[in-house]
């Protein structure tokens, strides 16, 4: 007998087939949705998606997919990444669609940082937008200094977010639950108000952000293949994909390590964890700093891409948007965050046809998901330290 009973014989034969089919379908769907312009197209596609999800749940396909995915995860993850790259090139000259893809990827990356805090270590952070913004402002300030290579700017953006978290460490480590939530809420409000009243960083008017440059390549210029000119957003979308991929691997490894296990222990029962020698303070500190650093890095790239930032973009409600990505996707679930980021970024955008009514509809949709799927869209699966074990080695 193997370590793990693999339930479906069909899945055992070619366990990745269903997953691969879903990835390809999702890619084509994403492309169609991004390119859809007319009201009836968007509506049709959204209805189609809801129907497909319901059908998958009803027929048990979703459950099987879940198992199959767990069984051949590394392969499917690589395939999904490849599909993403293909999608980016397929959109090639659709500026706006690429901007949406890149935005989704950066929000997804930020949500992975928050997931370390909310999902793994169980720490509330309602200042996500502030740390995201810290990275963006770092990019804005460093962009005026030509000596700093922009790739390093991303790292410094993370470092600045990390430094800003330091004064919060004492209150964060001493408090728990709602009390910790208030510390971060207060910090978020403070951060935004400070930027607004203080003229040094552009005040309420905001700052220009210089574009990304990599090995002499200006990201604001369009890549050309032969005589075919693509959108310059291809640059950002590809870099955002690389960043998201890197952070995904990192956070996945974190989850499947002793540190990740200890984060779970701290989240689920801090007292019991302490009795088994889990260094609670160090674990929380790691989660808080690492998460915020990831937020900062993704914010720095976001700032460069949007090219203009102002305090109004990093408010409490933006923090809530990030938190809702984490919760909608399912606490601790990375793939959940990816799906939820796409929904949170794309849905209000595609609902523009509803104009002033779209936030009302969006908030009601989120409430419905929370009521009927309290563990999120894709609940976090059990930990497997190394995927090979699952494959029935």
């Amino acid at each position, binding site marked *: 007998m193997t370590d793990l009973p693999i339930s479906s014989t069909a899945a055992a034969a070619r366990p990745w087939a269903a997953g691969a089919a879903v990835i390809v379908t999702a890619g084509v769907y994403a492309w169609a949705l991004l390119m859809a312009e007319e009201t009836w197209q968007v509506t049709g596609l959204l209805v189609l998606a809801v129907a497909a999800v319901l059908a998958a749940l009803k027929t048990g396909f979703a459950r099987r997919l879940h198992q199959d995915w767990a069984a051949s995860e590394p392969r499917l993850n690589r395939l999904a990444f490849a599909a993403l790259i293909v999608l980016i090139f397929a959109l090639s000259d659709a500026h706006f669609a690429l901007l949406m893809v890149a935005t989704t990827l950066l929000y997804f990356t930020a949500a992975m940082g928050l997931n370390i805090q*909310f999902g793994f270590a169980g720490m*509330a952070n309602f200042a996500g937008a502030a740390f995201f913004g810290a990275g963006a402002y770092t990019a804005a300030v460093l962009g005026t200094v030509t000596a700093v290579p922009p790739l390093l700017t991303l790292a410094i953006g993370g470092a600045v977010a990390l430094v800003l978290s330091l*004064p*919060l460490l*004492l*209150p964060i480590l*001493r*408090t*728990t*639950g*709602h*009390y*910790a*939530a*208030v*510390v971060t*809420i*207060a*910090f978020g*409000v*403070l951060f935004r*108000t*400070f930027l*607004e*009243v203080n003229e040094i960083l552009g005040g309420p008017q905001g700052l220009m952000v210089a574009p990304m440059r990599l090995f002499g390549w200006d990201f604001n210029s369009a890549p050309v293949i032969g005589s075919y000119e693509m959108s310059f957003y291809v640059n950002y979308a590809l870099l955002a994909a690389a960043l998201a991929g890197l952070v995904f691997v990192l956070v996945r490894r974190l989850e499947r390590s002793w540190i990740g296990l200890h984060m779970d222990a701290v989240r689920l029962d801090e*007292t019991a964890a302490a009795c088994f020698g889990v260094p609670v303070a160090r674990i929380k500190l790691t989660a808080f700093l690492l998460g915020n650093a990831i937020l900062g890095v993704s914010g720095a790239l976001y700032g460069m891409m949007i090219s203009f930032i102002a305090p109004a973009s990093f408010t*409490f409600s933006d923090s*809530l948007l990030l*938190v*809702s990505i984490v*919760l909608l996707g399912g*606490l601790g679930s990375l793939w959940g965050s990816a799906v939820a980021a796409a929904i949170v970024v794309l849905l209000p955008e595609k609902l523009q046809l509803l104009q*002033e*009514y779209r*936030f*009302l509809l969006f*908030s*009601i949709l*989120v*409430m419905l998901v*929370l*009521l009927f799927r*309290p*563990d999120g869209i894709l609940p976090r699966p059990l930990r497997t330290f190394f995927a090979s074990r699952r494959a029935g080695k």
Partner: protein
Amino acid sequence: MDFGLIAQYLANGILLGTMYALVAVGFTLFFGVLDVIKFSHGDVLMLGTFIGFTAWMGLAAIGVTNPWVQLLGVLICSLGGTALIGAAIAKWLVLPLKKAPQLNTLLITLMLGTAIREAVRLFYPNGSNPKAFPALLPDAAVELGSFSLRADSVILVLAGLGLIGVLSLVINRTRLGLAIRAVAQDEETARIMGINYTLVVLATFAIGSGVAAFAGIMNGLYYNEINFGMGLILGLIGFSAAIIGGLGNLYGAILGGFLFAGLQVIGAALLPFASAYKDVFAFAVVIALMAWKPTGLIPERSSDRV
């Protein structure tokens, strides 16, 4: 600084503090019985105020002109309506999520807040603009140098403090209060003692929401202006106040409310730098307070049984 000015600041602070305390009390009550934070509290307050405003327009339209009668009608409609809404939220949104992570409740009520806010903005006639709330209280004023004390402010503070007093009596002296405290203490034991758990939770949400509606009406009567966004800030401040004071404790909420008002007034009046920094100051102090007293100024009793 002259005496009149100090007195003026003090009066302002007391009025603000009373309002904040009334909002904070709701947070602390909900947390007490259900260990949840209902973040839509501020927007429910706003909705309650709009109900009151509508009631006033209705009364004025059918020819009721006596301000005291109008006030009574406004209060009955607003408090009653909001209490029902509060209970409905508890029944259909909060209780169903009891088994889910606490964060879900927080997010769902946040989203509810957004939905309420957007709905009022979109569907209340001309809801995106501020409304003039009627001045139903006498506006006589006593002038002492640069200090001006108005009758309506005094009445509002007294009424607010009175309501807090009544609430404290209800919690400490009545059967309902006993049931609420029992549920807050230990849900299982309370059930075994024959307390109708659901009913107590609904009653608590009704009371908390009614009190918030009172704070909203107070807000309307004092500023004579209401708008769809008024609940957002009040909710945030009320939540912070409840936390600073210590969740689950009525007196903590009151203390927190007055403390926050004090911080804001001090921030605006006494800080050497520009008054625009007063929120930076107030929230920085909140962070420092949490580092110093991680479970609030009046900590709740540790419920972590080992």
